[in-house]
């Protein structure tokens, strides 16, 4: 069933929409990684069984979608129309939900998200209740469409943008529109996408490539994965438009092998797109040819760097090369190549279809549009969010993320992945965009935001990132390879209480040297976690060195657990959880901790409900 012209695409869309209208209700079970790991597949199966049992399979549509974004409350189930949102759904509830909500139209309040507990407030899923302060442009179809069904994507306007590009715009027009939109690469660097495309367009060559970087290696980041899992066709459509614009006929998606669901959904999507005539020969009857192949990554962080990624695509170790040879001229297989990340490609269809002016209505002057973030760490609502650029960190952390759990004080956020930086609470009114974050000593990165509270030690966090980077540095250039090892050694010393007075200046000197001398962006941004924490949390470093104290109570060599007698009620909980018998005492009497037996595992501290454990 190949679609061979724009007219046929419209007919197909009308036909599919008609068929979908035959369903009276749609039940969408979230199939994002977060919900799957809380067993949403069992929820899906329970609904499937329940609907079949009641003979509703033909009138109620049941789909498993991509990430809805409310990871903390998963598994999530959305019922349309009515936008009824049930959270932390258990398979056993399917019976009751089908009977009450689907058959009788009644809401079951106890299963609903707080704030959505009346029919009036249930509102639109895209509205303010489920996703307050968000503007879901890229994610708008995540949670609505079945990622394994190309028909669903087409029904929601899919491939209309491609049709427009191929039949109404010249490649130069497309590039002009992307340039006008001022779209910047969402992978971290923030390079203007239109300029990259234009440089590649201008080069005369028999063979050019477009590549999608889906090697999302930042720990704590799952934006690209969620887009690929929930709406793979939007990325494919963006790539085809990009290929048309620059004159490429081959595409590659380099995706993490650790994302099996993303690999699977993308594979199915590419097969379907080929079958329906959106990729392959003579796309939509336009005469344009383009095809895409998937390559699975080998689990190396450095392969997020464009030249390393291209080496990896060629079946070699992912080592970057010097930047003065531009990949738009000599990239993959030494041929002109445009590489963008998942979210950048996903922005393209919208810009082409609705125009650059519409895109620029959101976001800031220098960074238009929206950005997807994964908001995680010490936060009440770990979730996937999409906000206009320029939203403040405070809005993100407090209003969208619901603040820090257990009445703790928020201390910092870390942005930009392992080579990003930590920003203190005093900077939370900063408006998040590419330039503001860089100016503050961090970076946008691909969009992971990790929230830290007063129990997080900034020296330990810096050390954590440096250890990560030590193991991920490819080793090709000396400043990165040796600089990181030296930073690891010094930070190790400080966290053990062996720091010396000159260490901090030495770390800064090392950092500057690595920034100046490293071959690729991984090396030159690697000192960021150390430099930004030294800049904003120098006192904390000093306390480790001068006072042998870790104020956050993390660095094991610098803490000793003890019972704060005036708070202790003798509830015996600490003694119960202590694995070594170090915490002990008589019921209803203040307990004590034997520091010889104590292995500093923190179990008693976490268990105590009366703040009676000190460290």
């Amino acid at each position: 069933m190949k679609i061979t012209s724009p007219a046929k695409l419209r007919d197909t869309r009308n036909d599919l929409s008609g068929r979908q209208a035959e369903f009276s209700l749609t039940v969408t079970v979230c199939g994002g990684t977060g919900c799957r790991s809380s067993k949403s597949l069992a929820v899906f199966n329970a609904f499937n069984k329940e609907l079949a049992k009641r003979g509703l399979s033909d009138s109620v549509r049941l789909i498993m979608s991509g990430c809805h974004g409310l990871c903390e409350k998963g598994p999530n189930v959305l019922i349309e129309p009515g936008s009824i949102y049930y959270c932390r759904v258990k398979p056993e509830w399917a019976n009751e939900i089908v009977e009450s909500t689907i058959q009788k139209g009644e809401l079951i309040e106890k299963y609903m998200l707080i704030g959505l507990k009346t029919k009036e407030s249930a509102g639109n899923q895209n509205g303010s209740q489920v996703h307050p302060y968000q503007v879901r442009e890229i994610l708008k179809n995540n949670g609505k469409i079945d990622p394994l069904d190309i028909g669903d994507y087409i029904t929601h306007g899919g491939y209309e943008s491609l049709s427009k590009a191929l039949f109404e715009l010249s490649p130069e027009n497309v590039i002009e529109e992307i340039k006008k939109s001022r779209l910047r690469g969402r992978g971290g660097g923030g390079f203007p996408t239109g300029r990259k495309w234009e440089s590649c367009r201008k080069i005369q060559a028999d063979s050019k490539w477009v590549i999608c970087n889906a090697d999302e290696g930042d720990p704590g980041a799952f934006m690209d994965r969620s887009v690929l899992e929930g709406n793979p066709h939007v990325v494919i459509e963006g790539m085809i438009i990009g290929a048309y614009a620059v004159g490429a006929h081959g595409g590659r998606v380099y995706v993490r092998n650790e994302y099996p669901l993303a690999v699977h959904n993308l594979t199915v999507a590419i097969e379907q797109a080929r079958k329906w005539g959106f990729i392959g020969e003579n796309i939509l009857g336009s005469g344009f040819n383009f095809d895409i192949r998937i390559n699975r990554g080998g689990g190396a962080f450095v392969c997020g760097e464009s030249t390393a990624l291209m080496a990896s695509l060629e079946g070699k170790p992912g080592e970057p090369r010097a930047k003065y040879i531009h990949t738009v001229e000599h990239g993959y297989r030494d041929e002109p190549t445009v590489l963008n990340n998942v979210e950048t490609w996903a922005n393209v269809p919208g810009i082409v279809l609705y125009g650059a002016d519409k895109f620029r209505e959101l976001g800031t002057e220098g960074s238009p549009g929206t950005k997807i973030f994964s908001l995680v760490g010490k936060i009440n609502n770990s979730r996937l969010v999409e906000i206009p650029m320029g939203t403040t960190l405070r809005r993100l952390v407090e209003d969208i993320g619901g603040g820090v759990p257990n009445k703790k004080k928020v201390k910092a956020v870390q942005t930009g992945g392992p080579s990003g930086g930590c920003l203190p609470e005093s900077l939370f009114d900063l408006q998040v965009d590419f330039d503001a974050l860089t100016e503050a000593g961090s970076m946008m990165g691909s969009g992971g935001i990790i929230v830290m509270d007063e129990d997080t030690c900034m020296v330990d966090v810096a050390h954590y990132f440096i250890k990560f980077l030590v193991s991920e540095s490819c080793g090709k250039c000396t400043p990165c390879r040796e600089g990181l090892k030296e930073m690891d050694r010094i930070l190790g010393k400080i966290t053990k209480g062996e720091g010396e007075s000159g260490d901090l200046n030495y770390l800064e000197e090392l950092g500057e040297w690595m920034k100046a001398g490293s071959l690729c962006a991984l090396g030159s941004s690697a000192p960021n976690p150390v430099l930004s924490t030294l800049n904003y949390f120098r006192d904390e470093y000093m306390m480790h060195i001068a006072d042998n104290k870790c104020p956050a109570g993390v660095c094991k060599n610098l803490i000793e657990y003890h019972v704060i007698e005036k708070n202790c009620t003798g509830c015996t909980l600490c003694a119960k959880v202590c694995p070594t018998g170090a915490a002990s005492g008589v019921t209803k009497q203040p307990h004590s901790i034997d520091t010889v037996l104590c292995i500093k595992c923190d179990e008693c501290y976490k268990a105590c409900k009366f703040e009676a454990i000190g460290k």
Partner: protein
Amino acid sequence: MAILANEIDIDLVDRIIDRSGSDPEALIGILQDIQTEWHYLPLPALSHIADRLGIPYNRVWAVVTFYEAFTLEPLGKYHIQICTGTACHVRGVAEIVRALEDELMIETGHTTPDGEFSLECAHCLGACSMGPVIAVGDEFFGHLTRSKALEIIEELRKRSGVDLK
């Protein structure tokens, strides 16, 4: 070579290579498929790949040792991935790593001598809302504490019918 080759099903290796069109560019994918099949990279397969793709053995070796995803050591029956992503780190996963290493008496990256358990640190499993989290195969265990993690090991030992204590 002939003796070593008998240890693994070379035909299967050939089928995997054929599927990728014997293309040196497909080396990483071929190695991934081999590892999916055997849960590690058997050495005889590596030399066979080099022969079939017409590339030097050291190129195969360079790729195998460069990428973190590849292992030359057989994985355990229960392959435990501990998420050490940033979100899990700030939620105290280091203590879980320590507890599991102590309990299983191996370091992460290794397999217990009885072949039951292997431990691996994964940079992010994408289940940040459940952190600290571990995955055993497809099964996720979240909101871990030291004692919860040890209970999971006990549970897995029971499933295995092995009582090591």
